[in-house]
């Protein structure tokens, strides 16, 4: 369903802040610049803070999709170190 080639996936539903961000950050650190990570996040506090923190780390969010009423799927382009 995604128009992007996804290199890795992370389901962070049910993971609380700031652990959801830390898990995404660690996963992105294992990946290489230019690769795509798909992350699924709960609506609410996680969606308020995680996308912002990921942007501040120098990565780019290229797509946001609502999966159901309470979750979002983000596609993150891994940035330069």
């Amino acid at each position, binding site marked *: 369903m995604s128009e992007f080639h996804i290199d890795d996936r992370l389901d962070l539903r049910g993971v609380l802040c700031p652990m959801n961000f830390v898990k995404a950050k660690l996963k992105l650190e294992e990946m290489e610049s230019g690769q795509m990570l798909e992350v699924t996040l709960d609506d609410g506090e996680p969606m308020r803070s995680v*996308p*912002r923190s*990921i*942007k501040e780390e120098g990565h780019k*969010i290229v797509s*946001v999709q*609502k999966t159901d009423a309470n979750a*979002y799927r983000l596609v993150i382009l891994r940035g330069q170190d």
Partner: protein
Amino acid sequence: MAPNDETAKLEALRSGLKKEARALKLDFDQLKSGGFIKQTQKNLFTVRLRCPAGQLTSTQLRTAAELADKYGRGEVHISVRQSVEIPYVHYQNFDAVTAALKEVNWSVASCGPRVRVPGACAGCTYNPNGVADSQRLCLDIDRRFFGVATGHHKFKISAAGCPIDCPRSRGADLGFQGEVSPRLEAALCTGCELCVTACQEKALTMAEGLPVRDDSKCNYCGDCIKICPLDAMVAARSGWLVRAGGKHGKHPLYSYEVANFVSDEEALALVEKTMEWYKGNADGRERLGATFARVGVQKYIADVIEPMGLQAIKTVEQRRRFWAGGNFYV
């Protein structure tokens, strides 16, 4: 005793007295400008240190600790307005304390009918909520206006980096609060609706797949800009929301929002103009808010805000977006 000896003794005594008088005058000046607050205990004072924006270097902290050990009782008190205070200091030690503070380029705070040390939150430099540099504005205000005599009563200024307003700008004689107006870059927006869910003011609604903003509801907090993962919502305009006429005390007053999107330079000029207005319009020992209650905030807006060419906030309707609730006894 030879008369010459007596004269010499008298001279010595006189010069000693002069010296003491000079020293006493110095103490008196320090007491007047504030920073030494009389305690319940005889001869003991609390030394209030000047900590604009609540910012202290580790050197200053060490100095405060050393002074508390040497001249106090080994404790400090963190005041409600971000100052470090050293209690239980004997007045005879004022000179020694002042000298020690001078060594680290520091001084005591102000008391009485003067501009007090301005307060601020962490601002935008390292606090992710911040939309404006409240620390820098606060330090600039402190450098220019700290200790200036008002001619009437105390004058408190605080600067908040965002509408969460931790520094209580509503309760200050003059308050500055960071604000940012958003604009949508429609070409980048994918219609994910995150900004709509983030907006607590319900100022955003979806229309034809894109968020549309009702400016009359927007309180310029910038949450929509911060949450947008695609940087489609951007800052169109930012600056300071100005609040005037607030106070705490036995009869607190919430301030009026009087101007929007004021720049740093305008904010500093506004402090000066407001001090002038306060000097000329206040009646005796009353706070700015009490003057507003007497002559009307509209006079202040007409005399100060409008001539400066600032974006004035004049009506209740314009203020409604910054609403505050509570018991106002009406």
